[in-house]
């Protein structure tokens, strides 16, 4: 909301200020993030409506996207109703920011899954035998059509998932197109990816993806599989099926041969039927570690011997390590993008912040100031930084951990919001939708649940360390091993520490950077297999020597 013109407001204000008042919060000594420091910080909400602070007017994304009342399954190039097409045959998908129902989506049964797998099987001989350059053309066409329909896809993604339009527009959709472009390039060059070996397509791939990056995860799965000559059955997450179904439309538009890509929507039962289908050659799953373990079990028992292949990209509790010789203001940016990007619903989120003791107070203080400028709210507003949590279920999980953190004795710290009672609880004060304000815990012990379990929300656990050795051992002291961040200006130190971290991705002086050419995947309970880059191709080929 615009305020009075500068001229007027200047005259009404006290002259600032021969003796600028020293803010009360400039001497928060003692433990960082303690209650008093939190209350005294000279920081106001970025959305404050009091006084003379220039604020942004609403900037809603205005592109309207047609959403059908009902979506069927995409099998063999056609949209077909589920076999059990009655009242139970469809389920609602909602907008987590408004709780409004967007559409009804088919619940794929085991029978539907079987139809899809059969379609993929029938398409496989043709697709795998197609001249590689012809396969590449189809994938390039997919990439181009995604770019052409980028705005529509971004809007749809935001409506269905709750992520801010800024991110779906600037991160998700460009990366989706990027993945198809990158892998289209590989289609006729696979022999060069595996020198001395002959790569061959595997067969039918069952791919089950999560709700945090719905379309991007579809691209991560489909692009390499198609480039290597496989056919696919993709199961989008229950809460975010719409963008994948739009991708199905694009497959039809570019005249991808029927059966090469099949999309079966549904809940966990659909996914279970798909990964345990006996005629599936390869299973790829991205999601929680719990479900991943179940899938591993199912694959082991339905794999017709050991021929069924499996890659898993699971949870994480990634450490973001800030040394005292880091560029602190930029490290703050890395902390922010590490944990508050996509509401913290990122498997590689930097959810454990390890700060060298000597700079802990400074980092905590700067983090609060910086967090105050994060704009939480309507995901469709172009200026929103943090949107809605994906589902009521996920919000309940986040709330559970918030309560647990406090119960275990950690200190909950919110952005510099003053005088708003509802803001004392990160999840209160929103009329509709599943929202959680960015926040963090200080005084976290490594044994605390919030330091060990994946929260998958905008909640950061801050811990300190004294020596590099301690930082490394703390960072590695987790069942997970997906990602890590290291911040220091000292080159020798950064390489030494990075080498000793047991994580699939280690970011140096940056965080949450993705590129189709860069492999991604985990250690330990974060899964196995790599996606992206030349390494990612390995999961989708058989190698004859």
């Amino acid at each position, binding site marked *: *909301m615009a305020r009075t013109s*500068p001229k007027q407001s200047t005259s009404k204000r006290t002259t600032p200020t021969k003796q600028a008042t*020293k803010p009360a919060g*400039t001497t928060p000594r003692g433990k960082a993030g303690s209650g008093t420091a939190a209350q005294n910080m000279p*920081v106001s909400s970025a959305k404050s409506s009091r006084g003379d602070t220039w604020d942004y007017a609403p900037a809603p994304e205005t592109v309207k996207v047609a959403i059908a009342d009902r979506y069927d399954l995409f099998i063999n190039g056609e949209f077909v109703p589920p076999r059990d097409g009655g009242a139970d045959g469809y389920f609602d998908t909602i907008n987590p920011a408004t709780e409004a129902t967007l559409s009804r989506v088919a619940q794929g049964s085991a029978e539907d899954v079987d139809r899809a797998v059969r379609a993929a099987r029938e398409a496989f001989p043709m697709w795998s035998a197609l001249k590689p350059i012809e396969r590449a053309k189809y994938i390039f066409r997919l990439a181009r059509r995604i770019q052409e329909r980028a705005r529509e896809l971004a809007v749809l993604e935001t409506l269905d998932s709750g992520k801010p339009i*800024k991110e779906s527009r600037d991160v998700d959709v460009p990366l989706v197109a990027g993945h198809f472009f990158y892998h289209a390039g590989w289609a006729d060059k696979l022999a060069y990816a595996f020198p001395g070996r002959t790569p061959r397509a595997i067969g039918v791939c069952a791919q089950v993806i999560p709700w945090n990056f719905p379309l991007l995860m579809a691209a991560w799965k489909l692009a390499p599989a198609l480039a290597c000559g496989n056919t696919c059955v993709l199961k989008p997450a229950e809460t975010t099926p719409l963008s994948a179904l739009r991708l199905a439309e694009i497959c039809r538009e570019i005249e991808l041969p029927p059966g090469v890509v099949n999309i079966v929507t549904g809940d966990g039962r659909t996914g279970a039927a798909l990964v345990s289908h006996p005629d599936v050659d390869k299973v790829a799953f991205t999601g929680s570690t719990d479900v991943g373990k179940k899938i591993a079990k199912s694959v082991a028992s339905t794999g017709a011997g050991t021929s069924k292949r499996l890659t898993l990209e699971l949870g994480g509790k990634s450490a973001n390590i800030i040394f005292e010789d880091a560029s602190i203001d930029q490290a703050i940016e890395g902390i922010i993008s590490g944990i508050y990007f996509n509401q913290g619903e990122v498997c590689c989120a930097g959810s454990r912040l390890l700060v060298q003791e000597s700079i802990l107070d400074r980092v905590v203080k700067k983090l609060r100031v910086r967090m105050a400028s994060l704009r939480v709210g309507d995901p469709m507003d172009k200026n929103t930084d943090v949107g809605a949590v994906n589902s009521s279920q996920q919000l309940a999980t986040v709330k559970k951990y918030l309560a647990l953190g406090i119960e275990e004795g950690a200190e909950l710290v919110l952005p510099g919001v003053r005088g708003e009672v509802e803001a004392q609880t990160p999840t209160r004060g929103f009329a509709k939708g599943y929202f959680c304000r960015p926040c963090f815990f200080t005084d976290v012990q490594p044994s605390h649940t919030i330091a060990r379990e994946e929260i998958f929300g905008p909640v950061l656990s801050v811990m300190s360390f004294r020596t590099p050795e301690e930082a490394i051992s703390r960072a590695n002291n987790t069942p997970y091993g997906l990602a890590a961040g290291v911040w220091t200006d000292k080159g020798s130190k950064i390489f030494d520490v990075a080498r000793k971290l047991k994580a699939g991705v280690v970011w140096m002086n940056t965080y949450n950077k993705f590129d189709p050419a860069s492999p991604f995947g985990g250690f330990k309970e974060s899964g196995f297999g790599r996606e992206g880059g030349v390494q990612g191709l390995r999961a989708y080929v058989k190698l004859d020597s």
Partner: protein
Amino acid sequence: MFESPSVDAVMAAERAASFTKRSIKNDAKRAGLELALSMLDLTTLEGKDSPEKVRALCRKAITPDANDPSLPSCAAVCVYPALVKTARNALAGSGVKVASVATGFPSGQYPLEIRLEDVRRAVGDGADEIDMVINRGAFLAGRYREVADEISLVKEACDDADLKVILETGELETLDNVRRASDLAIRAMNEAGGAHGHFIKTSTGKVQPAATMPVTLVMLEAIRDWYLETGQVVGMKPAGGIRTAKQSLHYLVMVKETLGGLVQTGIEGEYCPWLTPEFFRFGASTLANDVLRQIAWLKRGVYMASHDFSEA
């Protein structure tokens, strides 16, 4: 002396670029543009400057758009010392400040005594604000104490006039240097006494690159850290290279998101000191008419021709 934090240039550039992604619409755009107008130091620093040109600039600063008297005046007119008297007379009673570059602007390659005399003369002739250049030679050679002492001396020579310390960031090259020079200048002004009228400024406009978003961000961070440490508000002036209304909004977004949460309480309630002309300025001249054009468009729904506005 003191330790200045290091700056990671890649992440700083990324952060600076993020401010340009904000969508500033409707009321926010109009308020932002009027704010930018009120923060302008209309500047002319040419060898061929004439009293006539300075008088015209002063008229422009007082009434930026003759067709729209509701608009705020600019903050100051910035001229060479020889033209301070002309500007002083033309601006008398208007509230628009007279700023003068001094200290052997733009190079600063003069003996210290002459640089200080330059300042005293300009102040004597009626300058409200002095834009000084730092001794880049000494800075780049690592003689930080010398640079700081000179700033302190200039501050004393300013008497009651405000001081803007030009770092000439285009010659400092690295963001580490920008941060160090910012910290150094802020401390040196503080050592000279008083807590009022201290600005740091990016550029003379004579060296490329002049003001850039990453450089301004690093300087704002230095200002923020000083405020958090001492409670003192130091002003900021990016100068050179800011030509379009859109750019000025990008800078205001940067101020808001770097310093906007740091508020003081005035009669009207809380406000951010850096979102006022008292503590944030744009050093520019062509910017004025683009801002006026955009304001006119928002108000009247038509784009004016550039010749509809007087030259700045």
